[in-house]
């Protein structure tokens, strides 16, 4: 019977359980590596499309710090874009588990309750990192060069992944609320799309109509993109008066704020989730 000496109860239980869930979520990518390849195709298409199709037209308005290459300007933005869409996997994965009854099973087990969400978001972070790495390989191959230092470049990548992680919790709450795999796909798209396109990802905000600029300038995607650009291309890539440290500070505050609001909502939604 249970309750014998073999049942571990120790403070590290949450970490153990979270790791078990993380591993479970990542195993699918080792079983079907195609999943990861498919996940990379879209970002790479964006990269190639924007560089070679729109790059010529847009390229005139980019800051000099980009070294005259639209690709250099575009890449930090694209990293933020794929991190945002990548976070959407959290919502899709959770609704999938919910609809299959897997979450019910987890909730009926004597495991740490936040372990499912912690494991899910961490696995999605690793997935985003893998997709980012694949995309960066392509970007370097077609000529991307950071203009600062390796440290600045890596710090930029780390910042973008931090953003992806905090956004995962928003997606967790969204997925568990919507609770339907198909509807969740659409909800993620509708949430992410306006933020990604009305931002500094593809074009400088100054080129947008004046009514749109206040939103585009201050919304978190733009803040992340500018901070990442500052780190990878230098202060010259930023608006006059902005500093790299300042932008990174604001970006990290956004990440912390998003996490602080979304994580409790996600945990609450998880506790109430039930396969219907």
């Amino acid at each position: 019977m249970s309750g014998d000496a073999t049942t571990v109860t120790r403070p590290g239980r949450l970490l153990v359980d979270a790791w078990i869930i993380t591993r479970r979520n990542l195993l699918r990518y080792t079983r079907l590596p195609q999943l990861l390849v498919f996940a990379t195709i879209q970002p790479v298409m964006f990269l190639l499309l924007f560089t070679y199709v729109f790059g010529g037209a847009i390229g005139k308005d980019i800051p000099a710090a980009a070294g005259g290459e639209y690709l250099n300007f575009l890449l930090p933005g694209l990293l933020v874009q794929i991190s945002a869409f990548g976070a959407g996997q959290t919502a899709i994965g959770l609704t999938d588990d919910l609809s299959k009854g897997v979450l019910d099973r987890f909730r009926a087990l004597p495991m740490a309750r936040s372990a499912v969400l912690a494991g899910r978001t961490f696995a999605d972070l690793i997935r985003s990192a893998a997709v980012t790495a694949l995309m960066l390989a392509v970007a370097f191959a077609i000529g991307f060069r950071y203009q600062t230092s390796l440290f600045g470049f890596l710090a930029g990548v780390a910042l973008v992944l931090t953003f992806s992680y905090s956004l995962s919790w928003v997606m967790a709450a969204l997925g568990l609320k919507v609770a339907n795999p198909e509807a969740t796909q659409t909800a993620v798209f509708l949430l992410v799309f306006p933020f990604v396109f009305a931002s500094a990802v593809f074009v400088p905000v100054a080129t947008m109509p004046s009514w749109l600029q206040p939103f585009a300038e201050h919304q978190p995607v733009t803040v992340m993109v500018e901070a990442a650009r500052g780190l990878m291309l230098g202060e010259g890539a930023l608006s006059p008066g902005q500093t790299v440290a300042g932008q990174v500070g604001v970006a990290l505050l956004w990440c912390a704020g998003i996490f602080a609001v979304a994580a409790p909502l996600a945990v609450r939604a998880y506790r109430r989730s039930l396969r219907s």
Partner: protein
Amino acid sequence: MTGDSGSDPIVRADDVHLSFGDVHALDGATLAIEGGTVYALLGSNGAGKTTLINVLSTLLVPDSGHASVGGDDVVANPKAVRRRVGLAGQFAAVDDYLTGRENVEMVGRLYGLPRSQARRKAAQVLERFGLSDAADRRAGEYSGGMRRRLDLAASLVGEPEVLFLDEPTTGIDPGSRLDIWRLVRELVAGGTTLLLTTQYLEEADELADRIGVIDGGRIVAEGTADELKDALGANRLHVRVRQQDLDATRRVAATFSGGVERDGGDFEFPAADGTAQLIAMVRALDAQHIEPVTIALERPTLDDVFLRLTAGSAIGQAAT
């Protein structure tokens, strides 16, 4: 009867209410299950079976009332309850990308078993459920019956004292159903307490020590299969005649109260007095030179019990 040992019931629900909006999914559900027995919760879709299981396995918090497993309250001490219970839902909650073994080992680890022990226990339950050969294949390649067995295996790897099986055989082929029945019997022989829900009277009759009929979110009747049949009372007299005797039989039937004619020359009469009524009927028919094809006293079936008990209840209430 099982309830006379004086031991405390291991599973208890006491006047549990739970509503989803306007729908009273549970409306005063009360039950008690003795350790080491099989209790079948019998009800149609929407009767509240799954909701009650979900309350008992801590997935839902009731609006009012109390429920406990092994003395631990499901609301006050859910973690202790989760340690005691295993749950296999209506839909096999297995991960398609993991192998059967990985699925079971993972659940074992989440029950808190150390890795080596989870591995050993997983191998044991997989063996017992006839899944050893398939253990290292991805669960996505399993057949429906295998998935259900894998789900059951996973729910048992933590060796729960109490197992909740929500419609364990719904939607699987008859062969797999017999497999699952056999496994259930083995489990009970091993001392596990079992609460299973089913829509199939045959299944309840076959497996359960006690049966609770649930309707409209409450247990409307409870007892052994025999007790339930007795509670419905009266036997019935069943007469079948040939077509050419139909009119004459109708005239005879009119002299007996409460007779019902079904199609094809089938008549049924309430027969509280049993044999006396049978003899009276034989005489009356004989007087008209009617020779029945069959004439028999019949005990009510569990179907009759069920239909009688749940008659007039709302059809198709939404929540289960």
